[in-house]
């Protein structure tokens, strides 16, 4: 009994592949989503993230592999019998029903008592703060309102797992940012497992407990937002999540905690972090990645580059610097600097701020 309780809200994806005709949408995916976790599937369009969500909801069946929700197998179980609910990208509100009727739809399917339905609807209206909208028609709702109603319509069924397919993609920037916070608050309050799909890396980092970065039907990295940003496993993750610059280097020292590389074509040496599984050896060529805000300017000991573009972004100035190896390094500097396009500049990669993302 205890173990059953522990598994409530747990989603296990075991060796799942999905083919559409000859195109492979998902390749042998393994994924465990813990109860009460907010997990985001992040990736470019066509990476298979929505397919994975639809497989969990039961709207598609996997070609091979198994999906377990609450510890029990879900294969062949139709969507209406699964303990999950989904919020669709364009909300899929029933156009012929009003707001109230949309929300009670799932409860009527369950055959709940009328008084209970009313109580639950009032509760859920509290949750999403939509009390004034009960009798509205669907075509009288704005994007943000539709979004809340779609969320309420799913949440009222008290699913063990809530699936969200690009839930905020149709909203404008300001509303999107507010809804991110709200979504996270609702999830914390309900302690329901949320699995969300997005191509917006900012959103993924902002709302999730863990982020699964997907590409070409595979999960490239599954980590907390912090680690996804700071310790990307490879070039794809590094460039998809956040801004990044890549620099070719040569390893000159390998110790347990101490990994020193020399930037090619320069004498510049710095300590870097290693996130690679395979063993590294001296003189091996590697590629390191560094985030723009970590690069510093140091006219005494830095390595040389030429400013090619500069952009004012508000909080800081972003410079694009070309190295002697023709690689582009992006740096963000706070002060309104006197650098101009064409200027020579000396850059510094502080110790343990860059990370090895590929090695040959």
């Amino acid at each position, binding site marked *: 009994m205890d173990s059953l309780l522990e598994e409530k809200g747990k989603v296990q994806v075991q060796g799942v592949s999905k083919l559409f005709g000859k195109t492979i949408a998902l390749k042998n995916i393994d994924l465990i989503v813990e109860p009460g976790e907010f997990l985001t599937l992040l990736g470019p369009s066509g990476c298979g993230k929505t397919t994975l969500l639809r497989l969990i909801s039961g709207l598609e069946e996997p070609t091979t592999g198994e999906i377990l929700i609450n510890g029990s197998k879900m294969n062949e179980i139709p969507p209406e019998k699964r303990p999950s609910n989904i919020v669709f990208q364009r909300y899929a*509100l029933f156009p012929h029903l009003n707001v109230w009727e949309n929300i009670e739809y799932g409860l009527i399917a369950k055959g709940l008592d009328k008084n209970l339905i009313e109580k639950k609807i009032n509760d859920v209206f509290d949750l999403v703060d939509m009390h004034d909208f009960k009798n509205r028609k669907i075509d009288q709702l704005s994007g943000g309102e539709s979004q809340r109603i779609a969320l309420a319509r799913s949440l009222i069924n008290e699913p063990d797992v809530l699936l969200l397919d690009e839930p905020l993609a149709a909203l404008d920037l300001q509303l999107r940012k507010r809804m991110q916070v709200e979504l996270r608050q609702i999830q914390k309050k309900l302690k329901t497992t949320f699995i969300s799909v997005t191509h917006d890396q900012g959103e993924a980092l902002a709302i999730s407990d863990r982020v699964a970065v997907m590409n070409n039907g595979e999960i490239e990295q599954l980590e907390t937002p912090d680690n996804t940003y700071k310790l990307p496993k490879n070039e794809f993750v590094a460039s998809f999540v956040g801004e990044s610059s890549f620099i070719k280097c040569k390893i000159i020292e390998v110790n347990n905690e101490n990994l020193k590389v020399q930037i090619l074509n320069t004498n510049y040496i710095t300590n870097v972090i290693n996130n690679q599984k395979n063993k590294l050896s001296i003189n091996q060529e590697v590629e390191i990645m560094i985030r723009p805000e970590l690069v510093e300017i140091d006219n005494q000991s830095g390595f040389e580059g030429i400013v090619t573009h500069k952009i004012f972004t508000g909080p800081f100035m972003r410079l694009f610097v070309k190295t002697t190896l023709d690689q582009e390094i992006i740096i963000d500097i706070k002060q309104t600097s006197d650098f101009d396009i064409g200027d020579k500049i000396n850059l510094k990669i502080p110790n343990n701020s860059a990370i090895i993302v590929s090695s040959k």
Partner: protein
Amino acid sequence: MKKINKQLSSIIPLIALPQFLYILFLLFIPFTGLVVYSFWTSDFFEIDRTFTLFNYYFILFEEHLYLFLIFKSLFIGLKVAFVTIPIAFILSYILTFKFEKISNLLLGIVMVSTLSSYLIRIYAWKIILGEQGIINKFFLFLGIINQPFTFLLYGNFSIIITLVHILLPFAFLPIYSSMQNIDKQIVEASRDLGFGFLMTIFKVIIPLSFPGILAAFLFCFILSSADYVTPQLVGGADGVMIGRVIYDQFGHIGDPPLGSSIAVILLILFSFLFFLISIIYKIYKILKTKIRFLFLYNKIYKNNYFSYFLSRIPFGYIFLFLIIVFLYTPLFVIIILSFSSAKFASFPIEEFSLHWYFELFKDNVFHESLVASLIVGFIAVVGTFLLAMPTSFIFVRKKFILKKIFFLISLAPLFIPGIIIGISWIAGMGILDLRPGLYIVSSAHVLFCIPFFILIMRSRLMNFDLSIEEAARDLGSNPSRVLRTITFPIILPSIVGACILVFAVSLDEFIITNLVIGANSTIPTYIWGMMRYGLTPTANSLSSIMIIISVFLVILSSFIMKNQKTNIFAN
């Protein structure tokens, strides 16, 4: 057993089988009857059932009149198509790109005229073009002429203008629908990239709406070259066309086998032309990217003053005005004449009265025809709904081997001339020894209405957001509850609208009905009787009533479907 079912349903879903078999049995098996008939001979309805090639020999080698009339009719069909298509194209263009905001209203105006009875519209042109008609009266009044023009009525001119009037809305619909799919920004991009107005039409709009243009062309060509009512009413002695000849073989001449042979030859020519056009289309598709209309490039607007002058003229408004006048004048003429108290109604009207309306309601045959029409219409609606509703779904949502062919077969009753369907039913009934009657008429109407219903429902279902159904599944409904609580209520307005249209189509159907009805009559055959034997003015009052009912039904159905996304000819 289960396995066999599954195999069969990948060829054609079981739920679609009734409609498939219906069309197969009632359209293609009578064809076989027609072909069989064409190898028999007849001496005034005494049919000799021995196989012979005599009819074909007679038509091809002895009596050249028939071949002459066939080619004359095809030629008239071509003329009608070449007049109708450009008008329909311009109309579609200005509705899509110029009058975008009121396009639904204008679309309604065009469609309302389509569904007012075919027969009545021909009759109206007879009144307009005749020696006592409006045009002659007008010119006589102005003193421009002192003898009425006689060339207006009874000749190719009147046939072509009448057929253009009848077919224009039908040609307009497919072209308009295919233009609806053209992204406005594509047109703007073409202008932005330096192509002028005309070049954009040739480079962008015509290629993108080409399938619609082709469908419209086939429609006009086939239906007009095989028409038998128009030549009979407005054609006179010079305007005899092959449709009427075939009709007469089954009518007072009494040689159905000869009529069948002519029809078979006509069908062979149609299929040959169809084949030819599909080859041209394929070649066009290959060459499309290579053809350059360089010769047109920006030459038209070289003269700045000229172009400024042109841009001042509101061509769109003028054109639209003329089209609406063209479509509606005949209908108004009938309605106005129906209030004349004179026995031979003509302009100017001397005394207005409701006299002929009262006369009409006194007529027993009118009452019988009305009841017959209502019964037939009701059966047509129910039958069409039961057969075509499931197929509309499977055309949108299922994949199966015969899909393309089945779809073409389902639309075939629209593209096959009514006279051919009618006489093949006569032949089939003759072979099976069936008596004509209302049950035959009803089943013919179901056959004819299926394509209308499918086109409307299919386009509605194609615009149906499937994630709405998925949401309902996800919220705990099994598939049958999803159908009951979600899908059906959402598409219900379209179903009702389609049923009303089917009823209107059935109420006005004349071509096939007239051939298979036998001794009974429906409203259109009743009108036909009045028009042919002693033109009584009650024809005007009944026609007016029919026009108003049709207009009402079309407005009603479009009102019901107002918020439903339908685009009938969308691929």
